[in-house]
């Protein structure tokens, strides 16, 4: 009924976190060919989660419009007009919505773990670069 709201709310939180860690310094390494290699910053990895959460929530919101559960007038959720339907909606948000957000976060966590392992394997042989050489 309104399960997409939970992932969208998580998306707002992760967007704020992503903005706050964006300026964090990244570690630079030099390859044997002399090129400077940097890890993907954590803010970029967080943006993957943001895109999945907001993208999925947008498409699911459209499905809810399709089924008449989201309406273009206040209070925007048709279930809000009926107390019985409202409790059902809240239950659905607490079960399906939380599960959706959890599964997406789990999948993203798996992706980050795999990319970190791949980066570690690839960067193992590279030499650290001094700060003045990065520019």
């Amino acid at each position, binding site marked *: 009924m309104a399960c997409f709201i939970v992932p969208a709310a998580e998306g707002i939180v992760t967007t704020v976190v992503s903005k706050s860690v964006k300026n964090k310094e990244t570690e630079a390494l030099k390859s044997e060919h002399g090129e400077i290699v940097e890890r993907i910053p954590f803010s970029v990895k967080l943006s993957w989660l943001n895109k999945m959460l907001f993208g999925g929530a947008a*498409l699911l919101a459209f*499905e809810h419009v399709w089924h008449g559960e989201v309406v273009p007038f206040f209070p925007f959720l048709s279930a809000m007009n009926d107390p019985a339907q409202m409790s059902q909606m809240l239950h659905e948000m607490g079960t399906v919505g939380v599960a959706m957000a959890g599964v997406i976060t789990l999948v993203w966590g798996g992706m980050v773990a795999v990319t970190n392992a791949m980066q570690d394997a690839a960067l193992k042989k590279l030499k650290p670069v001094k700060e003045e050489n990065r520019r």
Partner: protein
Amino acid sequence: MTLLVSVFAAVFSTLIWYSNKRARELKCGMLCWLFWGASLMWFVDALFEYAELGADYFAPAAADMLNDFFLGLSVVALALIIWIVYLLIKDPDGVIKERLFVRKI
């Protein structure tokens, strides 16, 4: 059916993203995130529905299937619109920026 359409769209957009450099330049990755995000959410929704309906979940009425297929195609259309708007805003080739100004020599 909507889940199936979304999964196929996710797989095809990921294949295009992986195999085509031009597609990556044109921000095709955005489509992948949209479709994979929606597919995961509909998958969870399908699991809850399966827990409720059991085997009946796999035997939908023809009218429901058709409606869900129509919905799936509409979702793909919406995702393509989101992607094209994102592409025009990001303007990786500078086409929009070029059109905004008249060059006089």
